């Protein structure tokens, strides 16, 4: 659970950091600085960050970067990563071509 969050709490100003240019989500090429800035723009949950920046929306579905994103967001909010709820995992587990997915029932192909 993300719990109750007042979105007007003062996070202090956004201060640029030397490693802000580091790519965190490789599939969608999202940098650490973009994630940090998103928090200052009010995106306080992992799902909001994801919908705002596309972190974890690429081919690996966040299997590579989810933990890193969480750490960055938690640090910016000054909370423990444990209090941040993960984004919901979505089917299919791996990307599946449309013609294969369409073939789930016998006799129902095109």
């Amino acid at each position, binding site marked *: *659970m*993300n*719990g*109750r*969050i*007042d*979105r*007007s709490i003062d996070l202090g100003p956004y201060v640029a950091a030397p490693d802000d240019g580091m790519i965190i989500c490789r599939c969608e090429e999202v940098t650490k600085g973009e994630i940090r800035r998103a928090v200052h*723009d*009010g*995106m*306080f*949950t992992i*799902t*909001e960050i994801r*919908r*705002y920046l*596309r972190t974890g*929306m*690429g*081919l690996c*579905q966040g299997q590579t970067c989810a933990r890193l994103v969480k750490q960055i967001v938690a640090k910016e909010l000054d909370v423990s990563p444990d209090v941040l709820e993960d984004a919901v995992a*979505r*089917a*299919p587990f791996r*990307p*599946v*071509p*449309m*013609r294969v*997915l*369409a*073939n*789930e*029932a016998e006799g*129902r*192909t*095109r």
Partner: protein
Amino acid sequence: MQQSEVLIIGGGVIGCATAYYLSKRGLSVTVIEKKQIGEGGSSRNGGGVRQSGRDPRELPIAMYAVEHLWPSLSDELEMDVEYYKKGNLRLAKTDAHLKILQGLTDRATALGLDVRMIGADEVKAINPYLSDEVIGASWCPTDGHANPMLTTLAYYRKARRQGVRFITGESAQRIVKQKGRAVAVVTDYDTYYAERILVAAGFESNDLLASVGLFVPMNRILLEALVTEAQPKMFEQMLGTAEADFYGHQSTHGSFVFGGSSGIDAYTSDFDRPVTQGMTAPSICRGIMGYFPVLADAKIVRTWAGWIDECADHVPVISNVDEVPGLTVACAFTGHGFGISPAVGQILTSLMTNETPMVNIDALRYDRFKAKI
């Protein structure tokens, strides 16, 4: 105890847009959202910004949004909401399909919308990637699509910058009346006083309205959507079919977002979260491949589900409540609340500041529902 001029229940696109327009007028606004910003349909929808196919009672709102608000929304909110006004094709493969589309087209043109029937050649000229089985379409050149996740978050971001107080993870439980007037909302955390209260909580609006004896006849219905990996840029229109097998568009990102249903999913889902079902995405894929054989090898990356608040008469309730001064309701959008959301935000702002809305909404009152006999 907390206090603001306006209190909004629900942090979906309707609640966030209204918070934005109210705060732009200088009002103090608090928004209470049970889960997170855009938790409901607002982040899960297909992004359609369509006028064609809309009911006469709702069409003027859609037309107002397309003409006056969507084109400048990215500038206004200082964020690209990925709006495309590149038209909507509703596709036909059979004479029966053409007949359905002709009916829709006749009804829409009678209401002043620019929509017309076009033949196979013109369809192909607009979208060369379609199957040769397509024999015609209805074409509304001013329809389009936008990114729902970004639109909702853009309204939220700008409203927050303008000083709106958003609280998430807090659930509104009942409306408090004093001398007949709605004066506050009790949550699981505190009591929030306000001069005006807006309930924009999707299908769950009834839970709150019940506390003042109101009820909007609507059902929670599950819809699904899916997204492909990024593809080379192919086309910019919004698409649908005569039989509503699927609808969708290609996003700025390059991925295709398609929505649809298996036809029976609405009757088989009873979870506390909207979850996808095994048979739905394959059914949508078969629908897409029937019109876009070129996409057969595109990989599906993600599928998701969302609930719509389907009204008994398929148009929303957007209304002040006469019996409970101070209370305003906006719900029952029936699966097409995203496209009209900028206009709805402005209409609600007018309603809550005692002005006449720029579009007549008398047909969308809360008390229009009558027993059949």
